[in-house]
């Protein structure tokens, strides 16, 4: 069996080799045909060029150049005009956009500023109101204390007045009529007082001696 296989393999390899050789021959043939056709095309292409060189001479080319230049300039001008118009439009749109954006931003900022001002004002008002209410409380407390103190002092004065009432009345009586009532006018009262306390005076004099 082994020999068979070796023989099969050898045959296969030989066939394969012949196939490769045949394919190579075919390919070279195609290549040669291609080169031949390309040369022909090139020759075809070069033919008009040679005729064109014969038709379009130097003046004709100059004329074409001038026409081309003018046309180019016209196109450039038109494009420039279009560009200018577009630029103006764009600029105005940009201006409008900038204006609107700036206005919007400014309005927002101003509204924020106004809000902050209002907040600060409200804060200040609240603070002032709190201070006022605290002051009012303190004022009421102080007023109450002062009134209490006044009442205490008033009562002290009244008590002092009442405790010294006799001296006060005596003082005013003396001021009013002190010099106008003579001792002689008081004689009856003096003797009456002496009479009422006679025994006590006698007793005291006896004890003293």
């Amino acid at each position, binding site marked *: 069996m082994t020999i068979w296989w070796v023989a099969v393999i050898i045959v296969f390899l030989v066939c394969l080799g012949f196939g490769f050789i045949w394919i190579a021959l075919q390919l070279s043939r195609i290549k040669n045909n291609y080169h031949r056709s390309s040369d022909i095309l090139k020759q075809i292409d070069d033919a008009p060029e040679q005729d064109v060189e014969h038709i379009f001479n130097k003046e004709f080319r100059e004329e074409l150049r001038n026409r081309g230049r003018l046309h180019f300039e016209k196109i450039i001008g038109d494009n420039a005009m279009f560009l200018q118009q577009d630029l103006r439009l764009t600029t105005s749109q940009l201006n409008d956009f900038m204006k609107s954006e700036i206005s919007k931003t400014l309005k927002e900022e101003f509204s924020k500023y106004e809000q902050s001002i209002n907040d600060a004002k409200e804060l200040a008002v609240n603070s002032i109101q709190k201070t006022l209410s605290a002051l009012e409380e303190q004022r009421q407390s102080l007023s109450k204390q002062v009134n209490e103190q006044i009442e205490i002092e008033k009562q002290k004065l009244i008590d002092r007045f*009442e405790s010294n009432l*006799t001296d006060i009345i*005596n003082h005013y009586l003396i001021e009013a009529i002190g010099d106008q009532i003579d001792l002689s006018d008081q*004689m009856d009262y003096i003797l009456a007082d*002496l*009479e009422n306390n006679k025994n006590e*005076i006698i007793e005291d*004099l006896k004890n*003293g*001696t």
Partner: protein
Amino acid sequence: MELNVFYDSFKLPKTVYQMGQIRLLKFDLASLIDQLDSLQNQELVTKDKLKVNHLLLELLEFNNLDYTKRSDLILLQGALESLESQAQILHFSFNQRPRPEFIYTLVEWLRGNIGPKILISVGYNPSLGLGFTIRTDNKYFDFSLAKRFSSHHQELVNLIREVTET
């Protein structure tokens, strides 16, 4: 006459009421006795030859004493000395300086009701107001108007409250 007996009947006129007067009378009496002693040796003593203070004269006449008799003068001198050492003095204070008539009336009452030989001293206290005060050796009697008010203190307070409330 014995001095003790005389002293019991010895009286003071109403014009003699202060211890200072007693001392002055003693001095005048001594002077009179000296005058009498200087005249006794020479001739009959008569009243017109003796110079006598009017207060001493009043005291002598009030006690029925003859100032030409030395014995009477000696009695009086003894009585004044006894009075000076034993006198009962009441110290009065008034808000005015009293007139003499007032003092005489007061002294008369005191000698008629308290004692015949009472002497007084009179003080001046303008803050006293109406009324007076008496001070003895041991006690102080306040008969002033202020004292009267203090005994009616509550009534006065109620009265003032009624007036202020209306």
